[in-house]
């Protein structure tokens, strides 16, 4: 039976990555002085499973390396070896190493074994060479394969076996008759079994669950000793097994006996000899083949598929609720179907009820389907303890990372894209925010700084907070830097939040010396842009000496959007509701014209640039612009823009459809959706809009001064 093991590879990779994450997490939260047993167990189990799986699926390099890791962990687990910092560090690096080996394999590349070899020797050094026998699992593998070629030349050794099981043998599930059957199989029925009843007690003293019999078995057949050993392998400790060899009566039968029926032993032996020779070959060959071929197959398969995992694990609850809802939907559908068959006006009310039910079902179904893509943010959070540990060690800072809200769920795609910006923010907090321990003590703060990560849901968004108790943002320096970089001029007076907001401007970097950590050419502007590309926003608040707090707001999903429908001419456009600050109705006088080109709207104490949607989107409008304008004030990247539209329609949830898939990216448009009547409406890209408006906060500021 040949089974293509590569079909299990994807699952193996996924669970191995999960196992590695668990190992990493366990190691990070472990108290080196007094490691928690359960944590060690978890780490051990993960390593153990990876080793087992990689051996089974033919990834021997991984199995070999993981083996030493596991051996060490096993010693720690059993209390034979004390955990210490260097072991922990080594284990953490090993986690990375195994992960990278797996990633190489998954990508179809030959894994780079340099690091593994190096680490392995370090492990072996720790293990004091005791387990220099950590040969390769591959070898163990072949060892376990069917026995050595059978020693034909041993020519005519039969076996006598004296088998006295312990009385409790049956309770281990071992069954002598099955064992004899197996012996008969390997010896081609050249077997004599006689029971020895000596131990049999009187009927009254007999426990029916016990085994009182003993057996003498004679194998009149030159088979390999290991075949017999294998049969008794499991009971050898629960029984007396004495195996003795004897010369078969005639060692030359092999040649002469092929036709002789009257000599049962000889006949059997001859047929055995014929069949046994090819058998081991046939048996062994496929086993070796699988072992050799598997990695090759794995490569071929992995190359075809992208290394990025495209599957999601969905909890059974979510699937069940989905199935329930589909069930309800089917019921509603059949109810409506029946209603339609002989419909008359008297049944309108039932129709309406049915449709309401349908709407309810559909909405629930939609929500449930969306939930499938939702995963707890702990998937992102889990990488930060390691990051904080590594970065703070490099910088000699003492930092506690506090995580909360790890179970807050968000869309898988959003999650995949939010990791990098968060890494950047956290590095920033550690690098620029938290002070050196001596500075902190001098400032009367605890020596150890704290970085807090928090996530929660708030009105259809997920909010992620990154808070530190460091020095806070330095307003003077930000302002000075912004002036140097020409972002603002010296006379500009800005509110605190406007100053803080400057750090998100392109070309802004505050670190005096670009540090190795944060200053990797990626600025906060990129962070903001990445977040904006997810329809999200980021803002910062800070207090000198107390710390800073970054707040990221993201939509729960990229597939659905709460939209405000507006009408311009005959066209309907949709604004993401999150970007709308307010919508106001006002007459022309509220709009001032600046320098003949840009219009601005005075909105309380601010001036907001105005764009006419029909102009930038070249929508035909027959009637002249009404006196009463509706201005939708939207905010993006901290800038407000007023968008003039003809009419505000309703608000509704819309499913976002790609315009790029079959067409191209269109400036000012982020996507499309299908309205209730089947027509297409376009979704306005608010950040693109403010660019198209041709005005920015700077111009407004100068306008302000001019006015």
């Amino acid at each position: 039976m040949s089974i293509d093991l590569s079909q299990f590879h994807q699952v193996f990779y996924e669970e191995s990555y999960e196992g590695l994450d668990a190992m990493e997490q366990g190691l990070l939260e472990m108290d080196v002085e007094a490691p928690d047993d359960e944590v060690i167990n978890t780490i051990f189990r993960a390593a153990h499973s990876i080793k087992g799986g990689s051996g089974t699926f033919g990834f021997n390099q991984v199995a070999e390396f993981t083996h030493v890791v596991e051996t060490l962990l096993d010693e720690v687990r059993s209390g034979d070896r004390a955990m210490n910092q260097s072991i922990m560090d080594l284990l953490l690096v090993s986690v990375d190493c195994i992960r990278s080996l797996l990633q190489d394999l998954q990508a179809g590349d030959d894994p780079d074994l340099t690091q593994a070899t190096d680490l392995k020797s370090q492990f072996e050094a720790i293990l004091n060479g005791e387990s220099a026998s950590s040969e390769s699992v591959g070898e163990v593998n072949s060892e376990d394969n069917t026995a050595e070629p059978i020693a034909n030349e041993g020519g005519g050794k039969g076996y006598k076996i004296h088998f006295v099981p312990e009385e409790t043998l049956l309770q281990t599930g071992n069954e002598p008759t099955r064992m004899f059957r197996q012996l008969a199989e390997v010896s081609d029925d050249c077997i004599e079994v006689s029971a020895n009843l000596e131990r049999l007690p009187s009927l009254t003293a007999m426990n029916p669950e016990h085994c009182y019999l003993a057996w003498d078995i004679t194998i009149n057949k030159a088979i390999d000793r290991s075949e017999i050993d294998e049969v008794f392998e499991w009971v050898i400790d629960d029984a007396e097994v004495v195996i003795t060899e004897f010369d078969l009566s005639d060692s030359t039968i092999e040649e002469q006996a092929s036709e002789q029926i009257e000599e049962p032993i000889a006949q059997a032996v001859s047929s055995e000899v014929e069949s046994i020779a090819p058998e081991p070959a046939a048996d062994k060959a496929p086993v070796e083949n699988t072992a050799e071929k598997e990695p090759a197959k794995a490569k071929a398969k992995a190359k075809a598929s992208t290394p990025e995992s495209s599957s999601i694990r969905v909890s059974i609850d979510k699937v069940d609720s989905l199935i329930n809802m589909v069930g309800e939907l089917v019921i509603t559908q059949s109810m409506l179907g029946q209603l339609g068959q002989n419909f008359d006006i008297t049944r309108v009310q039932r129709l309406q009820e049915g449709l309401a039910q349908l709407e309810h079902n559909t909405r629930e179904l939609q929500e449930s389907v969306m939930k499938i893509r939702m995963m707890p943010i702990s998937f992102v959070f889990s990488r930060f303890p390691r990051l904080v540990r590594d970065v703070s060690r490099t910088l000699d800072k003492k930092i506690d990372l506090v995580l909360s809200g790890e179970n807050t769920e968000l869309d898988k795609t959003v999650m995949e894209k939010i990791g990098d910006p968060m890494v950047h923010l956290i590095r920033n907090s550690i690098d620029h925010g938290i002070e050196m321990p001596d500075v902190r003590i001098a400032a009367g703060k605890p020596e150890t700084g704290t970085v807090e990560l928090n996530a929660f849901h708030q009105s259809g968004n997920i909010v992620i907070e990154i808070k530190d108790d460091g020095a806070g943002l330095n307003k003077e320096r930000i302002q000075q830097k912004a002036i140097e970089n020409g972002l603002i001029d010296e006379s500009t007076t800005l509110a605190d939040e406007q100053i803080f907001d400057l750090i998100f401007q392109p070309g802004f970097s505050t670190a005096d010396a670009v540090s190795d950590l944060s200053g990797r050419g990626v600025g906060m502007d990129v962070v903001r842009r990445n977040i904006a590309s997810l329809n999200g926003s980021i803002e910062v608040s800070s207090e000198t000496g107390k710390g800073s707090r970054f707040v990221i707001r993201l939509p729960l999903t990229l597939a659905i959007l709460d939209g405000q429908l507006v009408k311009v001419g005959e066209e309907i456009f949709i604004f993401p509701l999150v970007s709308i600050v307010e919508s106001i109705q006002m007459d022309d006088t509220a709009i001032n014209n600046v320098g003949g080109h840009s219009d601005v709207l005075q909105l309380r104490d601010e001036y907001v640039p105005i764009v006419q949607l029909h102009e930038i989107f070249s929508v035909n409008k027959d009637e002249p612009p009404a006196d009463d304008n509706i201005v939708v004030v939207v905010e993006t990247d901290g800038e407000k823009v007023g968008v003039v539209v003809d009419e505000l329609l309703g608000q509704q949830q819309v499913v976002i459809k790609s315009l790029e898939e079959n067409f191209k990216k269109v400036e000012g448009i982020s996507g499309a959706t299908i309205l209730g009547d089947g027509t297409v409406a376009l979704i306005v890209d608010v950040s693109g809009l403010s660019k198209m408006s041709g005005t920015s906060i700077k111009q407004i500021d100068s306008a302000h001064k001019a006015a």
Partner: protein
Amino acid sequence: MSTVEELESEDNITEAEAVSTEQYLTFIMEEEEYGVDILAVQEIRGWESATPVPNSPDYIKGVINLRGTIVPIMDLRGRFELTKPEYGPETVVIVLKIEFEKGSRIMGIIVDAISDVYDVPIDDIKRTGFGDNQNARFIKGLVTVNKHMVILLKLEQFLTFD
């Protein structure tokens, strides 16, 4: 004897296959007949209004909802810079699935009227140079069917919206 017949008929089939032909769906624009590879044709539908897309070339009439997918509709006359058409009852949209190296895209083209389907032997397609005719890049070749010329279109060229 039947075996012989069978063999013969098999021969016929292979012969027919040996002359490789392509099928083209043709349509009329400004009294010329144009052909598109029929394998690319997803469906043909009547013209209905599309949602205009701002900041797009004039020849993109907009996008429509094709069973949940957003599909752009291109006016082929506009693309070829021919005279503006009056859309009438015969005006149809040919929905094409155009394969290119990175995948495929679906697009509708508005044409005056559907004409016919022809089997065109590949060898008969003339790939003449068209000088500096700016529409040359859209043209795969010319072929003569029933004594008149059919212009075969190179669909992947329609994917660049410039």
